[in-house]
């Protein structure tokens, strides 16, 4: 190297960096020992030779231009391993390629740049470590991305469940159907991003037979859309499940709403129990795209709406049926009752006027009248049970009520063993005793003895109405409380009395059963036992026998006669 003694450069042999010196003609002037080791090319082989002899690619413009700048301007040049992976190819043990960072700096002398020092750093370890670090980072990022994706899915699912819950709550609330539909419509609009919408039910109790709830639409648009919905061909097409038919309806509706600059429209038929009952329509001023999950949520909510609408329609029909049944009952109880009263009066008059009235025929007429009156009375009681169904129960003195009921049955042998106590019931509780005492008298005849008892049970009171009448065969006992189930004897009733008893006891929170008055001896009479909830502070005194029924239940002696007049 001209002007620079080799001995002064010998220090460069000691650094772990590849170093060589070029002159302006790109002839190598120095080649250090590190480079000898890396490249396998000796100093002797390289010094005095053109760079291009061993490394012709370094004369390509991407390198040559920058080397020229070093000599012309004196500006240093940096070559990174990422942009120049093969600047001075070196194979490392194991066959790996060496990664290098190369810096070229000018060496001036006498105001002129005469040489350039090329320094090559081995950055292979750095590249590999960075590579490992990137792999770890990418894996971590991938994991974070996966977690974020799952979180987003969870949030989305949560939102879907939340909207479905809100919609279900709104549509099943006790509010009026119009209000419920309006609430659920607003929820659907906020979920889908549509700006306006309406729900139209074909059948409703409104005066015009249809119901419309809407949000964000002008009255004129509502009327226009309704006129399309209600027009014959469209109504039929709308009820059709065919896609072509539905598309035809959509086109017609779009024509109507585009007059107000609505751009996108979604309409969905509303069905209840597979029957078309109405439509939903959503409108937007921009294009609203719903993905599969959103559509599924909407379909699910619309299914709920359909169920609620179907239920409302059934309720409306039930209300009509109930009103009709009430009309029939009014006719029965008022008109038929009046007629029977008239017939009764007429039969008594007839008996007085006739010289030789037939006792059989007259008593047949009077029994008939009594039966009709009983039927009317039973029907009236059942009606009251249904009407009272929603009124709260209140404490009633059981012993006093039984005493009052006994007064109705003048001449009957009734033994009242009910201690002072209160039960939860209503004013119809007396009907239970009226029917049971009446049944005992009907089936046991005038000489039958009736016991009425009560004893405490867990959380309530068990009552027992017993008689020493003919008893009931075992196979009939189970069905006695069913409606229209009657006894077998001549005096059997119309099957409503015990049905009334069981209906009332159920309403009071209790249950009924029929047993032999003396177990295993059906011929010794019947006991009807039912439970009632205890009310107030009057707790009955426990009867003897550790809460069991007293020994008198075997019907032998010690009967106290009451109300025998």
């Amino acid at each position: 190297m001209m002007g620079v003694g080799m001995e002064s450069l010998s220090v460069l042999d000691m650094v772990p960096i590849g170093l060589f010196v070029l002159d302006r003609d790109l002839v190598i002037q120095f080649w250090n020992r590190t480079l000898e080791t890396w490249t396998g090319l000796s100093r002797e082989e390289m010094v005095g030779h053109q760079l291009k002899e061993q490394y012709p690619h370094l004369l390509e413009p991407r390198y040559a231009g920058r080397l020229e700048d070093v000599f012309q301007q004196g500006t240093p040049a940096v070559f990174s391993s990422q942009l120049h992976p093969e600047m001075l190819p070196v194979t490392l043990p194991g066959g790996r390629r060496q990664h290098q960072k190369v810096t070229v700096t000018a060496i001036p002398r006498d105001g002129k740049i005469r040489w350039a020092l090329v320094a090559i750093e081995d950055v292979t370890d750095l590249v590999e470590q960075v590579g490992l670090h990137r792999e770890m980072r990418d894996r971590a990022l991938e994991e974070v991305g996966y977690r974020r994706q799952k979180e987003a899915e969870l949030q989305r699912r949560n939102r879907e469940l939340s909207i479905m819950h809100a919609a279900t709550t709104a549509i099943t609330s006790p509010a009026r159907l119009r209000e419920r539909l309006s609430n659920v419509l607003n929820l659907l609009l906020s979920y889908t991003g549509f700006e306006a919408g309406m729900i139209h039910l074909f059948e409703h109790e409104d005066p015009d037979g249809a119901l419309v709830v809407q949000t964000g639409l002008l009255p004129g648009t509502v009327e226009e859309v309704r006129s399309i919905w209600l027009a014959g061909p469209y109504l039929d097409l709308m009820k059709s499940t065919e896609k072509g038919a539905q598309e035809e309806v959509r086109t017609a509706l779009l024509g109507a709403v585009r007059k107000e600059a609505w751009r996108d429209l979604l309409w969905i038929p509303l069905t209840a129990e597979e029957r078309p009952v109405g439509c939903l329509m959503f409108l937007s001023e921009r294009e609203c795209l719903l993905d599969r999950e959103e559509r599924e949520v909407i379909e699910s909510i619309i299914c709920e709406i359909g169920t609620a609408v179907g239920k409302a329609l059934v309720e409306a029909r039930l209300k009509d049926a109930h009103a009709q049944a009430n009309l029939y009952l009014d006719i029965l109880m008022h008109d038929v009752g009046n007629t029977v009263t008239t017939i009764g009066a007429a039969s008594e008059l007839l008996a007085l006027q006739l010289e030789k009235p037939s006792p059989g025929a007259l008593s047949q007429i009077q029994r008939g009248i009594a039966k009709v009156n009983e039927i009317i009375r039973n029907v009236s009681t059942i009606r009251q049970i249904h009407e009272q169904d929603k009124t709260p129960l209140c404490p009633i003195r059981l012993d006093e009520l039984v005493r009052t009921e006994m007064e109705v049955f003048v001449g009957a042998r009734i033994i009242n063993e009910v201690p002072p106590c209160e039960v939860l019931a209503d004013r119809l509780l007396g009907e239970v005793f009226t029917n049971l005492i009446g049944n005992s008298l009907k089936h046991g005849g005038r000489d039958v003895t009736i016991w009425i008892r009560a004893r405490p049970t867990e959380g309530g009171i068990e009552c027992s109405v017993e008689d020493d009448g003919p008893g009931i065969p075992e196979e009939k006992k189970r069905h006695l409380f069913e409606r229209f189930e009657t006894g077998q004897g001549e005096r059997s009733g119309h099957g409503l009395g015990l049905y009334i008893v069981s209906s009332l006891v159920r309403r009071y929170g209790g249950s009924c059963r029929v047993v032999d008055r003396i177990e295993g001896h059906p011929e010794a009479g019947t006991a009807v036992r039912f439970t009632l909830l205890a009310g107030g502070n009057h707790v009955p005194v426990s009867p003897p026998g550790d809460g069991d029924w007293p020994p008198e239940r075997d019907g032998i002696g010690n009967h106290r006669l009451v109300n025998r007049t």
Partner: protein
Amino acid sequence: MTRILTDEQLDALKELINIGVGRAAAMLNEMTSSRIRLRVPWIRLAEAGELESLIGKDSRQLSAVKMGFGGPLSGSAALIFPKTEAAILVSHLTGEPADTPDIDALRAVTLTEIGNIVVNCVLGSMMNLLQQQVSFSLPCYGEGDLASVMRTSMRSPGDRVLLVRTRFCLEELHLEGDIVLILEVGSLDQLLLGIESLEG
């Protein structure tokens, strides 16, 4: 106090710098086989204290490649990017995934090379004009806010700074960086004299 440059002087400087960045773009394209274009929308002569407001972007997270120079023209030059834009530039030039936000040690060297090329070319066009030998320090990479990346270059808020807004256009990607030239006393005058002699 900020020296006021005439429109003609600014235009001449801008032309000089445009020659440099044009050459830098050609070199980058040659090296990376990319289709990069460099534009200089504007240049400003300002005081160092005004630099932060002139750079204008998020000056808390910057990546900078800086070189010092001495001689008839002395001072330092830096290519400065917001760190995120620097990462995007490196990703595009190296073909790495563009969602890599880091500037690790390897990417720092790559960015050093890019800055080295751009600054070399801009300074080179000035050297050619002055026809005088200037010595250079090696380029170095730094990150941080403006004060920390230019810490050793700016001595006082009154230093003269030539700020060159540089736009890197890679296909549909447009990134903006700044070339900051901090010139010591007399250097700007030397430069302007050189320009005037060229015009004369």
